């Protein structure tokens, strides 16, 4: 029997668990595999929502009769499958690097998809069934769904700070079981005999042995490889939403972490501790005995260039990591050294836990380490520096494989270079070191970005740059002033001593380039001179990789793949060309393709079923034109909602300093206020002549969304600029209040239309849910693709366009429908 009202608290808890599980999976797969792969797997697993909609479209009549039992069973199944499916999925020996060569790998990948889809399928069943069974309460059900999701996004981030991801997995599963008990109580079905098994199950989950839920990291991650070396062991692990930090000792074979150390180096690094983030991206904490001579190896890297030109007194090192940049500044006699590191756990290790190992260097009076994000820090800082040093902020392995090509990077944009240069003292330096890729991509792009930034500042870029490289690393030096003859002489001497090549300085000729680390052509020199010369546009156009400057609106610094080169690279995959492929981008395209194929199946299957049923039994049910409108509306709304959400989260990241906190605040605000909007929309459902009234309301809401987005698009930049120096909590409050009206409005169109659909043909409700699920998966991928190619602002404009389209496609029925009591 159907209860009189939906189990709203249980819905909140299920949605919270499902969203927490989604975020957690991203964390778990980033640890056991790689981030880009994690993104693909989780995106596609969300198709479980669409699968649920499709399943219920075909079978809902059977489930409606026994709602309480089916609802509870789905929650319990979600809870169990969340743990079991992940544990099974991590046993599958999938290796993304072998996909092109090993025919079993796609099979493994499909198995992982299928396994991870299962929990989302059960969670989505709970929501979709509630929407289908409680037509009058659609707005409230949807509101609780969004509210739960918002709370889940906050809760999981909090949990990840206090517990390891595998423990959080169990906690989420138990939270879902709690939802089952709450649901039974709400539906007045709770009996001692039915609650006991669920409680017992929760007890079993909480007492699972640790080794049952331990993470099975890919054998090809750096940490797994390192652990094969005799004596190497993990001495400590710290976990947070920012990553799993593993501190690794290797007493038999020292780490010797010194990126790009000169062939001619006469010294080597002292004892070090390896620090791996998510089993990769290694950095090192270096032992220091307060004898600067032990750090002399730091003078034989390309990143030491600025110190060979002058003696910077006040140095800032954004992205401090293990602290090598700070030690380098100390070695060269800097008087005041500041580091910025966004992972507080790493800072705590350097300043407290491993203070003895580091000779208490990071707590010296002349050294300070700030927990912050570099861009936000510099924007809100009033200080000026002699040197700002950014070195190897991307890890070598990930960089060379193009794994992080789709990660936004706000440090290497025109605006960022301008911010840093503005914080240099007269004649101060900004030095940026990157790993070298062959063919060159990243450094030419950085050079273009720097030239544009300097031109925007109205200075003479040609006179302000020095570029050097070794076979492995390159360093671009940007001076707040003109490079002098003495500096050029010093740079020449530094390069000659260490076997580095000069690729640009004011007045360079081709004879100066390509002597020690020889490339087929002096690519770096050619790129630098062309970018500064008259043929710049033609050079950028013809270059095989995208080296156009990056901006805050298109902050994808490491995405350099051009469509025109993609075919050629793909054809060379078996002939040594696999290293040219940018796997992050390819994964994104693969995700989109798979999502579109799956969506076609999920959307068309019920349609075929409806048509058969219409022909057989229900000639009165909705017609093809109506279904097309339902499809158009819910697909557009699904795309538009996520386009807006994703784009604005990107915009707020810069304002709130920290990508994680920004994403948490923005995501939770969007979901919570959209939930309130949805709850508010309920008041429109009972209006006379509902359909027309609804169309009117939706059109107004869409216009308001457009108005707010346009205002934000035009004004957010200036608002952020003006208020950047506020304390973080005040900025967070401002962000919430800016998101609130937009999200509130965005929460209205979906439930309003779903109510109409429910009144017209209730069987279409799960189908609309499936369409929305498919659109959500596709939109997340499409938003990234559009942002890469056209910029984040274009994504916002597109979202508004989609809202307009949706308002035109509103599924208006042929009959004057009123909401029927369920």
């Amino acid at each position, binding site marked *: 029997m159907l209860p009189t009202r939906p189990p709203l608290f249980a819905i909140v808890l299920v949605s919270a668990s499902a969203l927490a599980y989604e975020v957690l999976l991203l964390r778990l797969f980033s640890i056991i595999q790689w981030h880009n792969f994690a993104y693909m797997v989780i995106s596609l697993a969300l198709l479980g929502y669409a699968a649920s909609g499709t399943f219920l479209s075909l079978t809902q009549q059977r489930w409606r009769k026994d709602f309480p039992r089916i609802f509870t069973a789905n929650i319990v199944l979600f809870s169990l499958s969340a743990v079991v499916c992940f544990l099974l999925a991590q046993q599958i020996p999938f*290796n993304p*690097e*072998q996909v092109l*060569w090993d025919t079993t790998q796609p099979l493994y990948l499909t198995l992982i998809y299928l396994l991870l889809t299962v929990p989302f399928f059960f969670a989505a069943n709970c929501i979709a069934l509630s929407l289908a069974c409680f037509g009058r309460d659609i707005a409230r059900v949807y509101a609780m769904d969004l509210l739960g999701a918002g709370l889940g996004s906050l809760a999981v981030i909090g949990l990840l700070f206090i517990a390891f991801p595998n423990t959080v997995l169990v906690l989420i599963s138990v939270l879902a079981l709690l939802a089952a008990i709450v649901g039974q109580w709400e539906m007045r079905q709770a009996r001692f005999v039915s609650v006991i098994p669920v409680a017992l199950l929760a007890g079993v989950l909480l007492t699972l042995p640790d080794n049952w839920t331990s993470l099975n990291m890919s*054998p*090809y991650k750096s940490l*797994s*490889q390192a652990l*094969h*070396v*005799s004596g190497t062991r993990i001495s400590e692990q710290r976990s947070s939403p920012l990553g799993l930090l593993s501190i690794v000792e290797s007493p*038999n*074979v*020292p780490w*010797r972490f*010194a*990126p*790009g*150390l*000169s*062939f*001619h*180096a*006469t010294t*080597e690094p002292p004892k070090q501790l390896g620090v791996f983030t998510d089993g990769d991206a290694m950095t090192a904490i270096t032992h220091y005995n307060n004898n600067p001579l032990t750090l002399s190896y730091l003078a034989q890297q390309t990143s030491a260039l600025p110190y060979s030109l002058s003696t910077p007194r006040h140095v800032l090192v954004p992205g401090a990591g293990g602290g090598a940049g700070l030690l380098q500044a100390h070695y060269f006699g800097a008087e005041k050294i500041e580091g910025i590191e966004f992972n507080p756990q790493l800072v705590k290790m350097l300043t407290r836990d491993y203070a003895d190992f580091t000779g208490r260097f990071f707590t010296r009076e002349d050294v300070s380490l700030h927990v912050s994000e570099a861009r936000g820090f510099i924007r809100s800082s009033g200080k000026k520096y002699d040197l700002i040093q950014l070195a190897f902020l991307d890890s*070598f*392995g990930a960089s*060379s*494989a193009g794994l992080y090509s789709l990660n936004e990077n706000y440090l290497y944009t025109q605006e960022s270079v301008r911010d840093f240069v503005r914080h240099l003292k007269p004649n101060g330096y900004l030095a940026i070191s990157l790993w070298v*890729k*062959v*063919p*060159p991509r990243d450094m030419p792009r950085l050079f273009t970005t720097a030239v544009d930034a300097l031109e925007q500042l109205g200075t003479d870029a040609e006179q302000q740059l020095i570029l050097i490289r070794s*076979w*492995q690393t390159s360093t671009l030096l940007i001076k707040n002033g003109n490079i002098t003859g003495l500096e050029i002489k010093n740079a020449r001497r530094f390069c000659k001593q260490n*076997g580095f090549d000069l690729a640009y300085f004011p007045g360079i000729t081709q004879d100066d380039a390509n002597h*020690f*680390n*020889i*490339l*087929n*052509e002096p*690519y770096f020199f*050619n790129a630098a001179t062309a970018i500064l010369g008259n043929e710049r546009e033609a*050079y950028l156009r*013809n*270059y*095989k*990789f995208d080296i156009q400057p990056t901006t805050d609106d298109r902050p994808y610094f490491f995405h350099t793949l051009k469509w025109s080169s993609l075919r*050629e*690279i793909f054809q*060379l995959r*078996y*002939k*040594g*060309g*696999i*290293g*040219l*492929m940018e796997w992050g981008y390819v994964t994104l395209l693969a995700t989109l393709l798979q999502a579109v194929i799956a969506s076609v199946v999920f959307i068309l299957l019920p349609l075929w079923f409806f048509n058969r049923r219409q022909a057989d039994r229900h000639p009165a049910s909705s017609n093809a034109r109506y279904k097309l409108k339902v499809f158009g509306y819910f697909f557009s709304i699904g795309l538009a909602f996520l386009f807006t959400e994703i784009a604005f989260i990107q915009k707020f990241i810069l304002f709130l300093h920290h990508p994680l906190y920004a994403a948490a605040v923005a995501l939770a605000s969007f979901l919570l206020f959209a939930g309130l909007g949805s709850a508010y929309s309920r008041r429109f459902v009972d209006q006379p002549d509902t359909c027309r009234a609804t169309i009117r309301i939706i059109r107004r809401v869409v216009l308001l969304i457009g108005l707010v987005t346009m205002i934000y698009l035009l004004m957010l930049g200036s608002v952020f600029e003006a208020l950047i120096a506020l304390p973080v909590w005040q900025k967070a409050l401002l962000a919430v209040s800016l998101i609130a009206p937009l999200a509130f409005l965005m929460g209205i169109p979906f439930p309003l239309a779903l109510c109409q659909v429910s009144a017209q043909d209730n069987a279409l409700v799960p189908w609309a849910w499936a369409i929305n699920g498919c659109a959500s998966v596709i939109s997340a991928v499409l938003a990234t693709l559009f942002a890469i190619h056209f910029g984040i602002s274009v994504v916002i404009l597109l979202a508004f366009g989609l809202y307009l389209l949706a308002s035109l496609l509103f599924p208006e029925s042929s009959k004057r429908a009123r909401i029927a009591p369920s």
Partner: protein
Amino acid sequence: MHTRFSTVLSGLAVLCLCLTNAVANQDFDAQRRTLVKEIEADVTETSLYIGRTRLNDRVLAAMAEVPRHEFVPKNVREQAYLNRPLPIGYSQTISQPYIVALMTDLLDVDASSRVLEVGTGSGYQAAILARLCRSVFSIEIIEPLGKRAKGTLKTLGYGNVEVRIGDGYYGWQEHAPYDAIVVTAAANHVPPPLVRQLKPGGRMIIPVGGRFAVQHLVLVRKNQHGEVTSKQILPVRFVPLTGGH
């Protein structure tokens, strides 16, 4: 009677096994020859970047002789002669044969050369070098892997290869200097002690990239005056960077 029958049966079984092995080996021989042709074709296509239109005949002969299938685990043996890297356990791989051939060729070794290899892995690269040089000294940091490679090389009769388990950063001073050095284990820098153990006129080759995807090769050369230079080599026919063919 029963004993005689058993003996005949066992004899037949052994004969069958030998015949199967012989057929399999013949099959592997044919696959190896095909692989060498593939490598030759790849080299011709990539000549613009690698600076040579064909590999040294001795290198190709070594590639045609060394049984790669003996150096890979049984579960991937059938794929041993596909031109691709394969997993060999302990998070390691055996390199793509084309890359092995190219790296060997770039070392320019002859019958009198003394070669150091840092990162023995499966032992396949050492076996190829053993066919071309006087002696090969190979260091492997992962103990079980080194022991396995040592066993394979011994079984196959590569008497001029010596394998040591240990840290390769300081090379193998006892046998230095070397005419050529192969550093198969990617590092965040080239160990300067290895550069010092290179003879004047010697060459060192380093593959850069992931376990399954070599990005490029770095060829380090020390001239007769002891001056060190490196050359970055893209092992692929990628048309020029600024367009055109």
